[in-house]
């Protein structure tokens, strides 16, 4: 009975929030209503158990509960994307140079414009970084301590949300990418 209530609360709370909800916030919410004890080491485990239970409930449905950018969020299932995307007005996909720039920033962050240009072997148009910045995918992370003090760039939590991953570690590993077999991974 109590577990059902806890599950409903977690479900409703994550559902209502525009951003991924961290487990810490969920623990605080349940503690506030005395549904779990304060300062119990097992709270973390319990919340995780609840989230897994919910996640299982939503497996193979139109909505899925995913762990994104260090939090939990409901999203439409990617396998039914083709059915629902046509009617929703979608922004354009990123261009190849924007996507490569984003990839370099993700792997080499914090890095400067010059670093990006060096790896790609071409100069980087201002519009590309402007666009990535506008989408909230990258953010300045201070200045490099060299003459000219160029801006250092890094990725944002929105970048993780965009890709639907929980952590930068979820990006493909370097070793995976260096093999001579062309990388083909299409989860759709």
């Amino acid at each position, binding site marked *: 009975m109590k577990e059902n209530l806890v599950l409903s609360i977690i479900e409703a709370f994550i559902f209502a929030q525009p951003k991924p909800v961290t487990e810490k916030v969920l623990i605080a919410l349940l503690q506030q209503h005395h549904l779990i004890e304060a300062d119990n080491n097992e709270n973390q485990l319990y919340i995780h158990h609840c989230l897994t239970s919910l996640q299982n409930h939503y497996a193979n449905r139109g909505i899925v509960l995913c762990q994104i950018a260090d939090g939990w969020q409901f999203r439409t299932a990617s396998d039914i994307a083709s059915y629902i995307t046509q009617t929703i007005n979608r922004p354009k996909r990123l261009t190849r*140079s924007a996507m490569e720039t984003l990839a370099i920033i993700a792997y080499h962050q914090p890095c400067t414009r010059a670093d990006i240009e060096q790896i790609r072997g071409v100069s980087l148009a201002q519009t590309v970084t402007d666009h990535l910045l506008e989408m909230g995918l990258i953010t300045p992370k201070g200045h490099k301590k060299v003459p000219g003090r160029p801006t250092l760039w890094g990725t944002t939590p929105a970048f993780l949300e965009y890709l639907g991953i929980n952590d930068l570690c979820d990006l493909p590993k370097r070793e995976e*990418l260096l093999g001579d077999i062309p990388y083909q991974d299409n989860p759709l």
Partner: protein
Amino acid sequence: MDYVVSEHHAEHDQEEDSFVVHLEGFEGPLDLLLQLAKTQKVDLVRISILQLVKQYLEIIDSAKRIRLELAADWLVMAAWLAWLKSCLLLPEKPTDPEAAEQAIDVLHERLEALQQINRVAQWMQNRPLWGQEVFGRGEFEDLTAIDSSGILLDMPRFINAYLTMRRRQAKKREWSVKRRPYWTVKDALNRLRRLLGKDDMPGWQFLEVFLPIFTSETILSPEEKRRQWKAALSGTLLAGLELAKIGQVQLNQTEQFGQIMLKVQSSE
């Protein structure tokens, strides 16, 4: 040369245009090199650099014939690769063989780094992206309730309000400096002019003669009286000096702190 180019242009108009577009389709010389490497279908480590260099130079050569304004970075890469090619073909030449090896390593590294990024970008493109294939809830619920039953009242605010109000009230009171019944220079000047206009003031007179007779309605202390007399005297002296300046009177003092004498300036 001009002739060759124009002939070439006339013959392969279609092909050539597509070729130019083809070159511009690459994101720089390094990107082209990577694409050429891919056509060798072997691991980047085992790739034939010589073959790669040859291919690149051939493309740039033919592109140069068509478009003389080829961008500098394409040509810089071409020059560097031409040097590398010469090192590879003539290993016995007294050029530094280590430099050539290093150059090959650098090229390998740069191609590998770019290939890695190419693949990450591809991986990212293939992900179900937020806002593209995957969506969040269309409408979010605002789950905040505002409790405004409390009152924002604390000691700093309270004290501040009291002080501000009292200060404001204090400012509104009019302050006027209490007028002291002292003889002013202006008073003295008027009195002097009036007295000097009379004919019965011939010759030198003591300055004190011109002082007014004080009849105060309030009883003054001796201290106050002395101050009043001093003010009148200095006022009269200043008035006298003023009149002397414009030549109406003469002033005379025979010794320091001595009596000051005043005389009407004769009109001649």
